[in-house]
């Protein structure tokens, strides 16, 4: 059971309070009715599924109810950071920094 920091509740909570909600930062086109078949396939089905640092959405469904985003290492399951829905995707540098901070915290 993962231990996930909810950016709205501002503390770590056990995974069973949350529901995973798929890959993050997949933007729903504003011209939905007009996109091509390729774009539709991309939007609906194509996923990064990276073996490494991933961006994902969670909902604190049995807590504050908010959707938020999470950066996690899909190989180790270490959660690197969480941030509120609508906030920009963290840059590589920000992620590096967060990883370092986590390492220091443990050491």
């Amino acid at each position, binding site marked *: 059971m993962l231990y996930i920091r909810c950016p*709205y509740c*501002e*503390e770590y909570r056990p995974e*069973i*309070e949350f529901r995973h909600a798929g890959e993050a930062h997949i933007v729903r086109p504003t011209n939905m009715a007009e996109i091509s078949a390729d774009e539709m396939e991309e939007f609906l089905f194509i996923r990064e599924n990276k073996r490494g640092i991933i961006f994902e959405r969670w909902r604190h469904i*049995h*807590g*504050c*109810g*908010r959707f938020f985003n999470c950066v996690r290492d899909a190989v180790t399951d270490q959660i690197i950071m969480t941030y509120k829905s609508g906030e920009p995707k963290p840059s590589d540098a920000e992620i590096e920094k967060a990883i370092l901070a986590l390492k220091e915290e443990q050491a």
Partner: protein
Amino acid sequence: MANPTQATRKLPLDGRLAGGAGVSITPAASMSRVSLRVKDKDVKAVGKALCVALPIKPKTSNMSGDQAGASRSALWIGPDEWLILDGETADISAALAKSKAVMSVVDISHRNTAILLEGKNAVDVLRAGCPQNLNDDVFPVGACSRTILGKAEVVIWRTGAVSYHVECWRSFSGYVFKFMSQAAKGL
């Protein structure tokens, strides 16, 4: 005899009572409840209309008086969501109607029901099924949170050193009550 066409209220856990060593488990009396949704900018004003300041710190609650259940309470549920509790006859919606803020006021007096846990082992009854940290340092008196108990969603509100007010949806209350009763065995 009551007017035959006047409906009477029947609580889902009427008549139940349970407990174990160091804990009693009691269904709470009828209450008025509102699910309140307010935007940041209106929090203060709405709190004024309500006569209870809406807490903005996660997992905290405010009360208008000093006795849980007998006065109006506002529990932080989410960043724009509060659970407002008051006695059965209180009209919370009417109080809120005084505010002009854009908000959502939904009566959930009957959706939820509450169970009161009391006693030194009360917290251990909760720990049997609640995965959240309920230790004193992170869940002090006044703390409240929507969370899980076994397979039901609940709101746990710590109303005293050894007292907890647990809200759940009415159809889950039988389960929650039974869960607590079993958890109270052999603590």
